C-alpha cells in the first residue's frame, strides 16, 4: 500500500484549509440570515442597553472616561448574548457529527472564528454609531486610535468568545455559563480597550496608544494559538 493514513488526519494544503473554513463561514452566515437568532439578540441588547444608559444619565454631565467605559460595557454584554450561538446551535440541532465528518477541528474553529469576528465587528460599528448619535457628550478626537481599538477589540472578543462557546456548548447550563467563563478571560482585554478608547477621546497622539495595540495583538495571538491547541480535545470527544 502506497499511502497510509491514520489518526489524526491533517489536511494537506493551506488552500484547502481556507476553502473549507470559508464554506463554514458562508454556511453560518446563510443560516444566521435565515434564523436571525444571533443578530436579533445582539441588536436588541445594544438598543436596550443604550436606552437604559440614556435614561440613567438624564441631564447629568458625565466625564468622557466614564462614557467610554459604558460603551465597552454595552459591547461586552451584547456580545455575550449572541456569540455563543455559533457552537450552541450546532449542538442543539445535532449537527456536530455532520461537521466532524466534513472538516478537521482546526477548519471548524477557523470558520466559526471568522463568523464571530465579522458578527462582533458589525455589532460594534452599529453600537458605536448609535451611541455617538444618542449620547451627545461621547466624543472621539483621535479617530485612528479609536477605529484600531474597535478592530482589535472585536478580534479579541471574537477569539475568546469562540473557544468559550465551544466549551460551554457541551455543558447543560449553556446560557449562564458563557458570561461567567468569559469575564475573567476577557477582563484584561476590556481594561486595555477601555484605556485605548479613553486615549482616543482625550485626543492623545497615535504613539501613546502603541503599547495598548501591542497588548491587544499579543492577546489575540495567544488566545487563537491556545484555542487551536485546545479545540481538538473539546471537539473530538
Amino acid at each position, binding site marked *: *500500500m*502506497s*499511502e*497510509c*493514513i*491514520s*489518526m489524526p*488526519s491533517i*489536511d*494537506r*494544503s493551506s*488552500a*484547502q484549509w481556507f*476553502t*473549507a473554513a470559508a*464554506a*463554514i463561514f*458562508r*454556511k453560518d452566515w*446563510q*443560516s444566521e440570515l*435565515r*434564523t436571525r437568532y444571533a443578530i436579533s439578540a445582539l441588536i436588541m441588547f445594544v438598543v436596550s442597553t443604550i436606552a437604559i444608559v440614556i435614561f440613567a444619565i438624564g441631564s447629568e454631565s458625565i466625564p468622557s472616561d466614564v462614557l467610554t467605559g459604558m460603551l465597552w460595557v454595552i459591547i461586552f454584554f451584547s456580545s455575550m448574548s449572541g456569540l455563543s450561538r455559533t457552537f450552541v446551535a450546532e449542538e442543539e*440541532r*445535532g*449537527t456536530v*457529527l*455532520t461537521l*466532524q*465528518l*466534513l*472538516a*478537521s477541528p482546526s*477548519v471548524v474553529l477557523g470558520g466559526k472564528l471568522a463568523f464571530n469576528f465579522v458578527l462582533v465587528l458589525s455589532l460594534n460599528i452599529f453600537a458605536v454609531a448609535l451611541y455617538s448619535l444618542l449620547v451627545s457628550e461621547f466624543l472621539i478626537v483621535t479617530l485612528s486610535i479609536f477605529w484600531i481599538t474597535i478592530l482589535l477589540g472585536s478580534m479579541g472578543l471574537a477569539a475568546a468568545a469562540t473557544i468559550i462557546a465551544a466549551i460551554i456548548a457541551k455543558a447543560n447550563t449553556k446560557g449562564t455559563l458563557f458570561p461567567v467563563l468569559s469575564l475573567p478571560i476577557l477582563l484584561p482585554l476590556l481594561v486595555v480597550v477601555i484605556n485605548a478608547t479613553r486615549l482616543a477621546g482625550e485626543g492623545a497622539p497615535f504613539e501613546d496608544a502603541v503599547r495598548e495595540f501591542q497588548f491587544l495583538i499579543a492577546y489575540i495571538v495567544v488566545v487563537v494559538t491556545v484555542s487551536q491547541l485546545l479545540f481538538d480535545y473539546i471537539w*473530538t*470527544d
Partner: protein
Amino acid sequence: MIVDLRLEASHLGKTFNQRVIFREVSFAVGTGETLLVTGRNGSGKSTLLKILAHVLTPSQGLVRLLSEGRNPGGSLRHLIGFVSPYLNLYDEFSARENLQFALSIRGMHNEGSAIDRLLERVSLGGFKDTAVRVFSSGMRQRLKYAFALVHNPPLLLLDEPMANLDQEGRGFVQELMAERGKEGLLVVATNDETEVERNHVRVHIDAFH
C-alpha cells in the same frame, strides 16, 4: 475516485467515564468486502462506526485506513461516507443546499449537476429546493444517503441502514449495498443480517454492562 482501501482495527476499545463500552475488537477488511457489525442494543455498534469514521478516538487500540490510488482531496474525509441515526442535516437549508455545502467544504464542485442526479437517485428529485425542516423521517434518511454519497467515497459506513425507510427506500439501499460491497468497502452495523448479502466479514461486539 479510484481508491483501493484496507481498513484495519487492532485491539480496539472504547471507555466513556470509566464505563467500558467494548474492548478487544480486531478485524481487517479491504475493497470488495463487507464488514457486518452485530451486537445487542447498547453494545457500542454506533460508537465503533464513529471510531471507524474518525470522529471519535478509541480509548485503546488502533484503527488504520490504508489507501492506494488516486484521492483528489488528499484528506481522509474524502474517503468516507457515513449514514447514521445520529447524523442530522441543516433544517433551515434545502436538500440541494445541504449537499452543496458538503461539496464546497471539501473543495469540490457540482460537476454536471451531480447533486440533482443524486437527489433523483434517492427519490428526492421533487424536493431539491424544499427546506429539510419539512421532511419526514424517511425523507431525511434518504437525504443522509445522498449526503454520504455526494463526494463518491470508496468507504461507506452504514449504521442501521434501513431505519425509517419504506419498501422503495429499502430497495435502493439493498441495491447500493450490493454495488458498494463489490466496488468499494462497506461497513454495516445492524442486527438484521438479512439486510446484508451473505459474503461478509462479521464482527460481533459483546456488551460489557
